[in-house]
């Protein structure tokens, strides 16, 4: 019964979206207030219906209703509750349902928030938003119905991939979807702005919170995915340049560019056309991402659904929206006014360079991801484009970006003084250089990656702090005055600095782990002591245990450093009988300066086991950096939320 209600709600949601498009269309053309208003309200109704539908499928998962094909294939009564729920989106149909849920959720938010936007414009944005929802609702209902029943329900389900049974992965897809789909709002805003001819500073200020929100979610989603790979896949890799990872990384790069260009548009009414183009690109890339994952066109760990009809349907949606938007852009983009002039050395120029670097780097990733497909289609050759390629071609862009960042933030809007900017950065530059030389002399070998990476990180971090300090006049004015000024800085300034600091932190992590990781592979008998780096490891015992749906062997390692015990680590090897697979659960002793990472391997006979031990320097800074970036985004975002806005009228002195 509940299942039928869910199915019916989904159909009703589809009807509502059709109705909404009609009502807003007519209301907009004829300028009827009531129709436009009704159109915005329908966004609420639509969200309600999709919400009911989503809840009903979740209910079926929680209660293990195996009369549903979807539940049977993706759940099991023995699974913990969290994973029953995450099972809802751990598969094709459910994840598409989540996709439309988020899509309509953003429509709902737009409808009820941002009252400063004129109704007519808001309705127009919702018109485009609803068109996207309609396309995906029909996709779900016609090609991937989550409510399909089984004629003969089995007694139990077929489990979920045990690899995917993990808290990190339970939240990774929803966050990414929030990010991907959040970009639909910027996209709809771009189209509405084009149709309406109103891409200006007000437009930018309306759309910026949405871009920020998507960016925050994408950042966290990607970081979570990477962290999951790090502790779950069993050898501590954190980024693989897998097509599906690229599919989330490209929108991130473009959205990062978009954030910066929207800023220029908001503050200086510059880059209007470019910003619109980026909004279109960002969402198109998320559609491409969805297509990549859902069609299974590129073999990867992530494609759990390989069905050509679905692929073609999504391809059609992608072409319709990307193509349509680009045509609209070509036709109506000319109407957008050019902006004001600015001098060569200015914040505007710096942000343009930032945008160019980010967009071209995204393009390099794009070409690398799709080139094997293209070559195979044209010539029939199969080639691989893997991590060595991406590391080689992508890294230079990030180096350039981090070199430019401190200079960019030190330049003033409109016309900056490059000499003064550089002069203010002498100290960070010297400190960064000294550090690089110091590290180079301390490390064995002449590999440049580590020293250069840390130099860039320090340059970015100190440059950011210096700019902030300069802004409030630390050193020039009494400290009390500076601190008072610091308090008065707008929250967006804090957000910006925070995000840039996060970027620096991430560079620290990446440079360290790539340069100075230690790895040890050996056969260890129970009782054996071995040394990796300055750490001593002893295998004390290996025990048999189990969990709700698996059996496990657990190794017990004692770790000694400087004659004192640092940790007892318990790496596991698990067997999931129902899913018929084994996984390794690495033991990780986390720290700010290093992670110790042990993987228990195969039994080698006579109390001996294959063991991999790693010492991973500074690795956590990769994710700390991402988190700090996202936090910066949140701080910036908080200044846009009416509830959190400072209401501090200036007191007359």
């Amino acid at each position, binding site marked *: 019964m509940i299942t039928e209600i869910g199915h019916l709600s989904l159909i009703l949601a589809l009807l509502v979206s059709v109705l909404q498009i009609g009502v807003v269309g007519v209301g907009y053309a004829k300028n009827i207030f009531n129709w436009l208003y009704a159109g915005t309200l329908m966004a609420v109704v639509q969200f309600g219906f999709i919400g009911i539908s989503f809840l009903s499928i979740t209910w079926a998962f929680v209660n293990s209703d195996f009369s549903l094909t979807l539940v049977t294939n993706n759940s099991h009564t023995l699974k913990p509750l969290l994973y029953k729920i995450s099972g809802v989106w751990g598969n094709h149909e459910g994840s598409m349902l989540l996709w439309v849920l988020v899509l309509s959720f953003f429509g709902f938010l737009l409808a009820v928030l941002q009252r400063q936007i004129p109704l007519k414009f808001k309705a127009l944005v919702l018109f485009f938003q609803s068109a996207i929802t309609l396309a995906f609702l029909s996709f779900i209902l016609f090609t991937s119905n989550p409510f399909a029943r089984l004629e003969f329900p089995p007694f139990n389900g077929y489990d979920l991939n045990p690899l995917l049974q993990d808290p990190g992965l339970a939240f990774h897809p929803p966050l990414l979807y929030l990010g991907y789909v959040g970009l639909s709002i910027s996209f709809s805003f771009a189209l509405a702005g084009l149709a309406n001819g109103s891409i200006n500073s007000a437009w930018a200020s309306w759309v910026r919170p949405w871009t920020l929100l998507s960016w925050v979610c994408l950042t966290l989603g990607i970081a979570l995915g990477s962290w999951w790979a790090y502790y779950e896949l069993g050898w501590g890799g954190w980024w693989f340049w897998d*097509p599906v990872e690229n599919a989330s990384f490209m929108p991130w790069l473009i959205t990062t560019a978009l954030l910066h260009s929207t800023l220029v548009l908001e503050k200086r009414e510059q880059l209007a056309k470019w910003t619109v183009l980026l909004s279109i690109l960002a969402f198109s890339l998320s559609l491409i991402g969805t297509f990549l994952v859902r069609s299974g066109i590129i073999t990867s760990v992530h494609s759990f659904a390989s069905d050509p009809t679905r692929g073609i349907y999504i391809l059609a949606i992608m072409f319709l929206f990307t193509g349509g938007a680009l045509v609209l852009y070509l036709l109506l983009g000319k109407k957008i006014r050019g902006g004001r002039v600015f001098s060569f050395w200015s914040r505007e120029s710096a942000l343009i360079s930032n945008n160019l670097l980010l967009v071209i780097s995204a393009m390099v990733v794009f070409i690398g991801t799709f080139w094997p497909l293209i070559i195979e289609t044209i010539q029939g050759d199969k080639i691989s484009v893997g991590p060595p390629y991406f590391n080689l071609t992508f890294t230079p862009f990030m180096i350039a970006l981090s070199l430019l960042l401190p200079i960019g933030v030190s330049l003033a809007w409109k016309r900056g003084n490059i000499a003064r900017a550089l002069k203010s950065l002498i100290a960070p530059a010297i400190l960064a250089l000294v550090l690089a030389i110091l590290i180079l002399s301390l490390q064995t070998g002449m590999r440049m990656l580590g020293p250069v990476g840390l130099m860039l990180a320090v340059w970015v971090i100190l440059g950011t702090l210096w700019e902030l300090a300069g802004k409030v006049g630390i050193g020039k004015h009494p400290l009390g005055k500076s601190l008072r000024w610091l308090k008065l800085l707008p929250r967006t300034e804090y957000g910006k600095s925070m995000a840039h600091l996060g970027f620096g932190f991430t560079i620290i992590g990446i440079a360290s782990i790539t340069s100075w990781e230690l790895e040890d592979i050996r056969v260890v008998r129970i009782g054996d002591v071995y040394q990796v780096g300055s750490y001593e490891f002893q295998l004390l015992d290996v025990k048999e245990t189990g969990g709700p749906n698996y059996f496990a062997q657990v190794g017990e390692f004692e770790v000694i450093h400087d004659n004192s015990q640092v940790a007892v680590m318990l790496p596991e090897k698990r067997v999931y009988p129902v899913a018929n697979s084994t996984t390794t659960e690495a033991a990780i002793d986390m720290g700010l300066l290093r992670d110790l990472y042990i993987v228990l391997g195969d039994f080698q006979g006579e109390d001996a086991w294959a063991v991999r031990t790693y010492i991973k320097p500074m690795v956590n800074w990769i994710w700390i950096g991402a988190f700090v970036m996202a936090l910066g985004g949140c701080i910036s975002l908080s200044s846009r939320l009416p509830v959190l806005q400072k209401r501090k009228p200036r007191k007359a002195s």
Partner: protein
Amino acid sequence: MKRFVTLLVLLILMPSSFLGVEPNEILDDSQLEQRARDISKNIRCMVCQNENIDDSAAELARDFRILIREMLVEGNTDQQIYDYIEDRYGEFALLKPRFNPKNWILYFSGPILIMLCLILIYRSYKNSKFEELPANDFTLEEKKRIKELISKR
């Protein structure tokens, strides 16, 4: 006890779960071993989903790793090993695409786009419509006035 037996049976039936290089594969010569590792990171595991043979648990990947080590011990250069693998298993096995005309777009698109941007930037700097902007500094009088305004606060 019954559970232990089940576990034992399962463990025997299960495929190896240890990822990548196993202890018995490692060469005694640490320099050769390091080269083997570096090469392995650039070779695709043909039966896996987007993994290199260094990280892969697959049987085939293991065979490749051993092959590479044997070839290294025989004194082959890195290039000879890559060529050998490409000969036998096709370009698909190489994670870093060959630098040949077919793949030029992969390697040149980034630099070319950057060059284009630099040229555009240089030109906009050269014909400098920006110079119409008023000069960067304030006049003496303006500076005086600013000082006055600041001191008033």
